[in-house]
């Protein structure tokens, strides 16, 4: 592929992550009927990692973590680290990627959510000295995992459709450029 196409892809990932992040922090929390919000940027990270492979997963994870780091006042780089590794981890399964299967993405979503929340629990244990494990599990982790799983079914489908369109247009343009 030509380098311009790489740049275009990276820009698309960046804008997508920004959009998801803004939705996640500015719109969903104001709907008080939901007890928790789905982690949209995590969905994007693991979906693209799974569809395109480790490198794309890391790039999306990097952007996702960057947004979190810019928003929170925790040590800068913490979320970049977590999300990049999750992107890489999901990319390891990309050789099993098939467009018609939804079992693996859902499994991956579950795994990613659990690892992500475990990492935050570990960080909080180090920073605060104690965590309310049972409370956190019941009131923060489980609702979030549930909502994220639910939303994954929809968002993954949309990303998959966009992925096909993007590939077709890039293939055509790649031929012209070459």
């Amino acid at each position, binding site marked *: 592929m030509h380098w311009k196409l*790489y740049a275009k*892809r990276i820009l698309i990932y960046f804008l997508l992550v*920004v959009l998801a992040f*803004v*939705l*996640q*922090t*500015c*719109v*969903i*929390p*104001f*709907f*008080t*009927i939901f007890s*928790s*919000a789905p*982690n949209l940027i995590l969905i994007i990270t693991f979906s693209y990692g799974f569809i*395109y*492979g*480790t*490198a*794309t*997963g*890391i*790039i999306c994870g*990097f952007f996702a973590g960057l947004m979190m780091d*810019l*928003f*929170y*006042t*925790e*040590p*800068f*780089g*913490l979320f*970049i*680290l977590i999300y*990049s*590794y999750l992107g*890489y981890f999901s*990319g390891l399964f*990309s050789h099993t990627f098939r467009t018609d299967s939804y079992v693996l993405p859902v499994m991956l979503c579950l795994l990613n959510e659990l690892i992500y929340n475990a990492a*935050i629990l570990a960080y*909080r244990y180090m920073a*605060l000295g104690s965590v*309310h494990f049972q*409370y*956190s599990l019941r*009131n*923060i982790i489980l609702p*979030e995992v549930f909502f994220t799983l639910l939303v994954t079914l929809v968002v993954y489908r949309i990303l998959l459709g966009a992925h096909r369109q993007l590939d077709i247009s890039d293939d055509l343009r790649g031929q012209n450029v070459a």
Partner: protein
Amino acid sequence: MNNRWSKYILIFITILCMFLMAVSYVQSSVLDPVRSYAGYFLTPVQSGISRFGLRVSGEISERRHLHEVYDENAVLRARVEELTEENSRLRSETLELERLRGLYVLDQEYMQYPKVAARVIARDSQKWFRVFRIDKGMADGITRDMNVLCGGGLIGIVTEVGANYATVRSIIDDESNVYGMSQYSGDTCLVKGNITSYEDGMLDLTNIDKNAVFNDGDAVITSTLSTKFLPGLLIGYASDIKINSQHLTKSGKLIPVANFDNLQEVLVITQIKTETGIVTPVTE
């Protein structure tokens, strides 16, 4: 993308993040310019979208609550009549009170701080960290450590400021500690955020002397002892006060005045407490 390089990218990111985390852990203000510049792009977007989100959610809840509102209206009408009568009685009592106040020369200093209103534009979606972001920043004279109020009570403190936004840590966050005192007796206590207590809508009240006069229902205000919180701000009301097993201190729960679940507009006090007293910070 070429997956051959991803291991090296990952190693690079790991080293970079470890370095950044170490730097920001030692000196947290180093990366503030980065966050501030990002705010230039992000805050207008967040502000616009949260306004849109609020309108949509408002409309949805409007429909859901319409029939409740009808019932409530009938109850409230009856209440208005009751209150009108009460009001006329109280008005005559107010005149009496004013006269008595003049005699006592009550200290009117409390609660007369200059305030600025701000809108909440982004909130933590995952409830891990009880922080939120408001649409006023350095340009509006906001600085770090300014106290934030809502619904007549203290809700938090500004922990980070950008050019056009500020991040506020609410007092229900696990990392929050506020020195308070009983408005009635002046005995001090410590108001601690605790996510398990907040499940029941409460905060923890600790470090009360065993001889202190502290009863359920006492109003708890910020103490003059606090280094960052201005004195005299109402936090909430004490409840479940009991003596600890060692018989050295008392502890209990605090019911906050402010509602933390549905923050939309908040007031920021534009004075901060320093070692030399209460000052209005000058921003460049």
